């Protein structure tokens, strides 16, 4: 668990809003090691989600270098970036972000279209992922037929089915009640421990922080280690 799978060096990011420049990250250095379950905490606007987007290559840094799973993400573009993301990154969002017209099974199968798996293999892998998150009996339900907690578990199954190197979770319990949130957190913890997945989770939830193996507190784009 000593190799850093994510390395951020001197990373800066600013956004323009209403003619004003908002410096979200300034010269950020951060390492995340293989198998870590890292919680990023801090007030709104401190740059937590920006870090996730930069790690996943959804956003570009204004300055600095980001190495993720052996690649300098900022040099990847277009189809190469998409392929790299499909192989290495799994996303879990606060708003679940399932495709509403597809069933749970189909949502999990969707990213598997990017793999060389056969149709039968894709179906089986998606079924397995849904079993893992305890939704084997909800395969044919559409998102609006599921509870928030179940939707989030489908989203985790979708991310997990691709067997990514890193799981990026943006406020995964933000829209859930306490019971559902606990189930989701327990699921993430199990994935980190049993499957040795690296998880980076943005959260305001103190209990979520307690589940993590390490907590980083962010304040105005500056990182401070905090006890897990």
């Amino acid at each position, binding site marked *: 668990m000593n190799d850093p799978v994510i390395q951020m060096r001197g990373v800066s990011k600013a956004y323009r809003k209403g003619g004003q420049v908002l410096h979200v990250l300034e010269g950020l250095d951060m390492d995340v090691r293989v198998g870590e379950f890292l919680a990023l905490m801090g007030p709104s606007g401190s740059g937590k*989600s920006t870090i996730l*987007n930069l790690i*996943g290559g*959804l*956003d570009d840094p204004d300055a600095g270098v980001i190495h993720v799973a052996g690649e300098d993400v900022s040099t990847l573009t*277009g*189809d190469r970036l*998409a*392929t790299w*993301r*499909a*192989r290495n*990154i799994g*996303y879990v*969002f*606060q*708003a679940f*972000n*399932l*495709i*509403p*017209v*597809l069933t749970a*099974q*189909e949502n999990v*199968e*969707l*990213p*598997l*279209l*990017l793999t060389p798996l056969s*149709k039968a293999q*894709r*179906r089986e892998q*998606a079924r397995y992922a849904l079993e893992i998150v305890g939704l084997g009996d909800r395969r044919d339900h559409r998102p609006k037929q599921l509870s928030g907690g179940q939707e989030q578990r489908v989203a985790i199954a*979708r991310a997990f089915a*691709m067997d990514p190197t890193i799981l990026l979770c*943006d*406020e995964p319990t933000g829209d859930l009640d306490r019971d559902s949130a606990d189930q989701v957190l327990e699921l993430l913890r199990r994935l980190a421990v049993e499957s040795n997945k690296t998880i980076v989770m943005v959260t305001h939830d103190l209990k979520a922080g307690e589940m993590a193996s390490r907590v980083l507190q962010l304040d105005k784009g500056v990182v401070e280690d905090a006890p897990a």
Partner: protein
Amino acid sequence: MNLGRLIRRHAWSHPVRAFLTVGAVAVAIFLFCFLRSIVTSLDAAVKESASNRIVAASAVSLFQSLPLAYKEAIEAVDGVESVSRFAWFGGRYKKPENFFAQFGCDARTLFSQYPELVLPEGQAEAFIADRTGAIIGIGLAEKYDLKVGDEVPLIGTIYPRADRSMWSFTVRGIYRSKRANVDEMTMYFHFHYLDEALESGESYGPRGTSVYLIRLQDGYRGEDVAAAIDRYYEGGPQRTRTQSEAAFQADFVNMLGNLPTFLMMIGMAVLIAIVFGIVNTMTIAARERLRSMGIMLSLGFSRSVPARLYLVEATGFALTGGVAGVALAFLTQGALRKTFGTQIPMYTVASETYVWAAVICVITGLIGGAVPAWQASRMEAVEQLRRGI
């Protein structure tokens, strides 16, 4: 699970909108086929005209009759094989609103001049033998449910009967046409029947014939024979204008003014409107799906995938509607031929019209999908996901 399923699910996620879009395309394509078929049917009559027939009409107007005495003189012109009088009768079947074309002609020469007319055995002879007999096209027979032996009462308009009674003809034959230049919505009867009634005073109206139809001997050029006839009557008593059958048919089309151009312009306007319709539908759909497309990008799909999804979906809408529109055009051919039989006797949707409809559907779909596809190709996943967070 495949992307095709995702496209179908997205397309039918709003069934009413999808149905209306497909329906609008279907109506537009049907209208295109219909309007184009009017033009091509009229053109076909011109293009398929026989090259060995020429038509002599009054140089003044098509509505001016030519003297009957011209027949013998025309027959004597070098290159003429046979001459038939064709008198436009203009009658109404039973009621004033029932109109179709009727010509008084020389029955014996009609069949040698028009090998396009095909009748069951014995019917041509039966027609020739009956002074009040007539032959009618199969389209006419079907429209008015007429059979051989039925009486066809006609109200004389150009040639009313002196006692105000109706003209009476007997159906002796029902013909089919081998070519588009001869329609199946016309009635031919004996010129003598009309002329004798005028002679005896049973009827009144202009004496003479509307046109002379001339069949050429082999080896003679229509232009030369036509020029010889027109030269002969250059000094009167009434000048002639003799032209090929194709040119004569084209004159009829030209009498409609710029109608073909007008119809095609309407057709194009309808298609442009439907392109806007599809662009509108797809733009709304694309806006609703920004987040879904952002999710796909975050999952590792390249930007070209959402773009292709929109293009395929829009083309799918256009093709589905197009198939429905083409099917409608195909299935209504018979009914439209009956409805517009008098104006466009050989109304047919040509095979090239179907090809054009398919091409238009594909182009319409691609244009319709191009706008959201272009937007999708420039989309940033973070921006789209942020909308939902």
